[in-house]
């Protein structure tokens, strides 16, 4: 994957769900749940790097 071609993630996001979804086979179940949990956990990585910068 050419990471330099990826769009700039918005605040709160490291890897957008839309990017992750492209790596997956067609979703058979409830996509909303996949999206929500992906974004929540991804947001923790965002919190990590930005708090290292701002708080520490």
């Amino acid at each position, binding site marked *: 994957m050419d*990471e330099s071609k990826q769009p*700039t*993630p*918005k*605040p*709160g*996001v*490291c890897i957008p769900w839309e990017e992750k979804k492209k790596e997956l086979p067609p979703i058979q179940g409830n996509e909303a749940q996949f999206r929500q949990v992906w974004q929540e956990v991804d947001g*923790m*990585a*965002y*919190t*990590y*790097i*930005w*708090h*290292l*910068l*701002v*708080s*520490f």
Partner: protein
Amino acid sequence: MSDKETLYQQRLKRYTTALRKGKPDCVPIRPFVAEFTAKYACMTCQEVSYDYRRAFEAALKCAADFDWDAVAASMVYVWTGLTHAVGLKYYGVPGIDIPADTGFQYREPPEDNAFMRSDEYEQLIADPTGFLFNVWLPRVSGDVSAAGQPVTFRSNLSFLKGGMAMMSYFHAFGPQIERLRRECGTVSAISGILKAPFDILADKLRGYLGLAMDLHERPGEVKRACEALMPHLLHVALSSADPARQVPIGLWMHRGCVPFISHDQFNSLYWPTLKPIIEELWRHGHQTMFYAEGRWLAHLDAFLELPEQSIVFHADQDDVFAVHKKIGHKFCISGGIPNYLLAYESPQAVRDFCKRVIDEVAFDGGYICDASAIMQNEVSIENIRAMTDYVRDYGQY
């Protein structure tokens, strides 16, 4: 309702009334005591900075023993156990790099070896989060491998230990705030963190000297970098703010004032990339505490552009009386009790100065008592007691 809960409610009302420029029953006391808590609790700076649980205990002991309305859950905010786990290089850790009873220190990067190079602005602007992970972190951490370098055990551990340590630390604040309320009847004074985009560039990326050169050689890139940081810093502030919107977000102001930068640079760069963040926070119902380290008197006219009550201005080395005259009609003022007085002068000298502040600044409400700067272990316990007792006694409205 328990006695402590009754006390808590009284103090919360007193503190939040003053924050909104009102006149409570008496002058609220909100001292930002950092390494002072270690001194009072008979601990070293190493103990409270390397083990946040010790820092929490020291903060609780002070809150229990002094009649303070609000305190920070822990003002020794940087947990050096975490920074060690990540491998961060820019700290002087008490007990290792500096004496065990000296407060932790930041190390300015050398001008020729800053954490971000002068030709990397476009990379930062294009993707700030990616830049932090891929470029900045490997430089500030002695353990994290740079992109293209071999993955190492230490690099993997830095992320795992750092992430888990941060989660453990942040999750400990809720119970600490609850203990302050339940055991001491004391309010947690602030919630959330903000720094100006310019300060982030100076403190953590280019270093002050590097940025000072960039302001002359590539001012356009500096401004666009500040603009690229703005939405992220807003996000950090909003996501860490008080959901009840009672206590302010802390803005820690470092080197954005004259003479660190010129008036023109303040007006064209620092302020236009900070003001919209403050306004947006206010639109969300959050006050911001301007912890104005150094002297900011030259910029008070700019701060007057902000909506009434949207900020609390904390006076450090500024003359608190002049600050009050200039912006006291619009914003709550805190601080202004000189640290040298609290550290080296007599209790009577402390009382005399507090009397003047109450008479000339706090007389009509909208003032919160605190030292000028964060109180470290040079501050005298006797003088803190004198300040507390005097303001509680003479500061009744």
